[in-house]
């Protein structure tokens, strides 16, 4: 097991990019290798040691044996854990754009907030955000019609707009509130939102399931009421209580499932 600890010593207002510092790349690196490494900053590169104190303990034969800790605020560090396949990354603070984007395996934990595009095009692995995320979490790249396809994204706080755009697999759990258009264009996969939702979940969804345990302000016209169901099972998960079940989005001949907690959403009936 190898533990790499990066302790911030200098803040850069221009974002650093960490997509090269993933376990798959660095499992064989010694402290000297890190000290030689130059990290992308804007359109240049500077020594990583300008920004971090680096500690390396133990040895790793494979990426699975790596734990990397960014011990402090990484609110201006983009692409943390981007494309990682194995191992573990922990951020003790905030993370900037694209945290865990295109991740295929391993785990990323952010003990703070994450900026937009967290878990973008995720294929596998697990991301846990202890704070809030901004827009486009678990979504596709801009313009792209193929989004998150696997893995699990858990957000303990609130999520922003267009959560899980074009999702085609995997699982997202938002424990707080969620803004507009969660699950837009989704074709498969599962989204659970425990808090309140402003409006329009599941716009143009073709398939997959969204469960909302809080209050939904406005529903899209493309969702048809199916039934009131009790203790439903959705994609192998058991929920207790009464739910209003909709199918949509009929605007695109969608067969997606939208479940709203009946208690909190009486205004839709």
């Amino acid at each position, binding site marked *: 097991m190898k533990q790499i600890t990066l302790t911030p010593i200098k803040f850069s207002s221009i974002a650093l990019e960490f997509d090269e510092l993933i376990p798959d790349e660095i499992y064989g690196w010694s402290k000297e290798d890190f000290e030689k490494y130059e990290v992308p900053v804007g359109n240049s590169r500077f020594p990583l040691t300008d920004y971090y104190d680096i500690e390396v303990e133990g040895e790793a034969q494979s990426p699975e044996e790596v734990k990397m800790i960014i011990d402090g605020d990484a609110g201006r560090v983009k692409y943390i854990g981007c494309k990682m396949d194995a191992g573990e990354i922990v951020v003790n603070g905030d993370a900037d754009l694209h945290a865990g984007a295109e991740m295929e395996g391993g785990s990323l934990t952010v003990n703070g907030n994450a900026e937009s595009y967290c878990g973008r095009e995720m294929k596998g692995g697990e991301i846990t955000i202890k704070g809030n995320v901004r827009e486009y979490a678990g979504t596709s790249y801009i*313009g*792209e019609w193929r989004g998150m396809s696997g893995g699990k994204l858990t957000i303990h706080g609130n999520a922003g707009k267009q959560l899980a755009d074009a999702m085609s697999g995997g699982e997202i759990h938002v424990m707080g509130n969620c803004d507009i258009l969660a699950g837009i264009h989704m074709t498969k996969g599962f989204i659970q939102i425990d808090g309140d939702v402003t409006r329009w979940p599941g716009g143009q969804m073709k398939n997959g399931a969204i469960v909302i345990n809080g209050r939904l302000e406005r529903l899209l016209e493309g969702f048809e009421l199916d039934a009131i169901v009790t203790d439903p099972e959705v994609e192998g998960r058991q929920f207790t209580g009464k739910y209003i079940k909709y199918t949509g989005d009929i605007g695109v001949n969608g067969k997606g499932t939208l479940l709203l907690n009946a208690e909190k959403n009486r205004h839709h009936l």
Partner: protein
Amino acid sequence: MEYILKNGIVYDPINEINGEKKDVMFKDGKIVNSVSDDAKVIDVTDKLVMPAGIDVHCHLAGPKLCVGRLYRPEDERRGVKPKTDITRPETGFSIPNCPATGYRFSKMGYGTVVEAAVPPLEAKHTHEEIIAIPNIDIPPLTLFGNNWFILQFAKEGRIEDIAAFVSAWLKITKGYGVKIVNPCGSEAWGWGMNVHGIDDPAPYWDVTAREVIRALAQANEMLGLPHSIHIHPNDLGHPGNFPTTVNTIDCMKDIKKNSEYRNQTIHLTHAQFHCYDGTSWRDVTSGVEPVADYINKHDHVTMDMGQVTLDETTTMTADGPMEYDLYELTGLKWANKDIELETASGLVPFIYSGRNPVHSLQWAIGLELALMIEDPWKVCLTTDSPNAGPFIRYPRVMSWLMSYQRRAEMMDNKEVHAWAGRKSALGTLDREYDFYDIATITRAGPSKIYGFEDRGHLGAGAIADIAVYDLEPNNFDPTRNAAEVEKAFSNALYTIKDGQILVKDGEIVKVVSSKHVRTEVEGFEDEEKRILEEIMPFFNRYYTVKFENYVVHDHYAEPSSVYKVNASK
């Protein structure tokens, strides 16, 4: 500055040099027969030397590309490369940014690339993008096939007026030749319709594709333009479209050519998309045989392949209704453009896959065409970039043409679907192109077809556009080493443009401005003036821009290379 490229194995079909070991000399940007003792020697002993490549049909500059980049950011992120001391940053795969377009062509040893479809209204934008693309000369073809004035004149049979209009509009748009896309069909798209076959009239104008094609061809020959008409026929990509294709080229056979350099009066572009038999995508089969047979028996036609490369790409064409059909088929995003009195274009992303039966058949049809047409001078290598695949795949297409073994391997080990073998004759075609044939379809043939007397060969007086590849033709078997063929043609050892070394060892070492290659007709000025006066009231009424702002001014087309034509009436 004088140079001598020493001891290369030279393939120069125009001068009938077939793999001879010889020196190529150039001075001040031109090929010469001798140089002084001070000449700088570049040793390319035993390496493959050809004239720089000429691409006859590519979409690389203009509004379609710009729309494509705007609405496909997911394509732009493929192929990102940071700037270097010499080059600017690169982005994109099927629709690269302008600098990347130039660098990538240059790396493949290309020197001239034709922009295949320029709507006159957007010609300024095309020239702006040519300014931003480095290292290759670009002749833009101007679109005429759905132009309201042309439709009107063709209906009335006013050939001389069409000639005057073409002559004037080539000057206005700083274009090189006449491009026709789905004649009457793109205009019908304004009514939400399309036309089928060459005798289906356009709504309102009541004129058929046959009349438009013939009229434009007669005008083209009246002016004696260096290139013939360049046509994307009706019914692109429809199963059962091969009769339309044969009819299109057949309706031209009595038109006399007026050019000494080229042989054809019609160039059929991306022929792969026009050679389908059957009635639907379920029973579609290859329709290459009748088309290839016609081309083999007639000399007034040349073609380019439009080879499918099995990549994710972006389709873009001034064939608006076809793009709508494609959008219906794929369900992916679609962009549509209406170019006022001139044409209608569209864009749809497309994923060609070897697992898909139809795409695999398309792949086979392109190769079948190149292998069944006997005379390589009638064939050009293209992918209709980016429609059937991005241009960076040309070397891969070369490797397929050069190796029967590789083609069979692809069909045997399921890199392509069984339809490729079952519904086409590709599996039975064991012809293999050699380096001389490759030089013909990518250099010499295009030079002849376009009337580029100054390029596409290594004779004295030609511009010094030369490509050297890291292959030793005398010690190398391209029929057994497809991967190496692709690698070598992708990364030229040297690309020399106008006598300057732009690429060395597969890397860009110098960046120069691209030239706008265009045609100017002389001796038709009075007719041009008369026709402009006649159409101006109509122009002012229907265009959203003023004529003064429509014209491409000289500073848009610097530096230029102008082919002067004496209209021989």
